């Protein structure tokens, strides 16, 4: 196996992890990874050195963006429903609170946060993946973290209404 293919294969576990966190759906996540790999293997000649991992994350991020666009998704509809009361077992119960908090983020913020904390990409690499200046990455990261914090701190619409 060529070193290109070997490197692609070595990135698959991380791609699955990132896709799973982005979509929260195992099948959909693996479909995205598969599409990413098919495209990468087909485009081997377009890869001119550099970091294969960043390149694959870029492809996956673009494919996911195309997917969301085609769904014309309305982001907040599902997550602000009545069942949004805090879990009695505490914020980290089963990881569901962090999932819900991530769900509230706009896609660009969610990507930036996941690429940094889950995939350990440098801010520079995230800027390349998202195709934006590094300052934009920093503000996406800051907004993502502030929003998750206020969600986990209990500043939820449902609670506010009660007060």
């Amino acid at each position, binding site marked *: *196996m060529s070193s290109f293919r070997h490197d692609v294969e070595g990135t698959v*576990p991380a791609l699955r992890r990132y896709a*799973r*966190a982005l979509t929260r759906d195992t099948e959909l996540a693996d479909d995205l990874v598969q599409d990413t790999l*098919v495209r990468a*293997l087909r485009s081997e000649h377009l890869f001119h050195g550099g970091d294969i991992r960043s390149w694959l994350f870029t492809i996956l991020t673009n494919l996911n963006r195309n997917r969301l*666009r085609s*769904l*014309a998704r309305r982001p907040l509809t599902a997550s602000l429903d009545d069942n949004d009361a805090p879990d009695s077992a505490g914020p*980290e119960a089963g990881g569901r609170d962090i999932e819900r908090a991530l769900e509230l983020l706009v896609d660009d913020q969610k990507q930036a946060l996941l690429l940094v904390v889950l995939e350990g990409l440098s801010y520079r690499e995230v800027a390349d993946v998202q195709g934006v200046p590094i300052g934009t990455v920093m503000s996406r990261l800051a907004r993502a973290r502030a929003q998750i914090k206020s969600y986990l701190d209990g500043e939820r619409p449902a609670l506010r209404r009660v007060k």
Partner: protein
Amino acid sequence: MIERESPVTEDELHAFIDGQLPAERSAAVEAWLASHPEDAARVAAWRAQADAIRLRFGETANEAVPERLKVDTLLRSGRKWRAIAAAVAAFAFLVGGVSGWMARGTTEVAAAAGDPADQIAQEALSAHKLYIAEVRHPIEVGAAEAHLMPWLSRRLGTNLRIPDFSHFDLKLLGGRLLPGPSGTAALFMFENGNGDRVTFYCSKAGPQQMAFRYLQSDNVAAIRWVESGYTFVVSGNADKARLKELARAAYEQLENRAPPPTNRSSAEPARKGT
């Protein structure tokens, strides 16, 4: 929040917990956090978020990779895969067609009434959104097929030309025929190595000539112009500067003449080498 004369920035607080702070700054940040409990609490909360995210999703990377995601499998099943993909794409086309059509009512209410060129541009943007989502079947006829241009030229009743976007690292994938608001339309799709896609749309409309106009819908945008009775639309990510460069390049190549005059040239300097 951090005070105005702060020697520690918010970005540095993020870099601190993300392990991306230059070593020489870590002592300053630690000292800052020791004397600013609010920031220390914020940083602790961010760290807890990161831990929760890693706890929740980290395990995925340790799962056995399913057979269908192995490189050997993907290479071996390339041929069979394409056959399946064609069937999947045909299905997705039906579903996408319906949802795309339904979405039109809600997301594109702003379609300018009356101006046929703007209606065509809206249509081009809808087609762009629909087809960029197609992974394996974005086009009807590939760029390598000799009959692509003769076929679409005949259907549009003109000698079609396609812009060359190779300066933008965009490669032509191919084209397709579409029904447009004022007759037949052709859509060409370009793609770079990162999966970023741009479409070029062409349809017959109006005898008059019209200057560039920019339209945006969510994260995608288009620039349209009218020349010699045809409306041309370039659609892509909502990046106005880049779209302008693409539209300008297409315009210049198609008209085979000098850059359009004054009022548009204030936008950006011409791209080198075009």
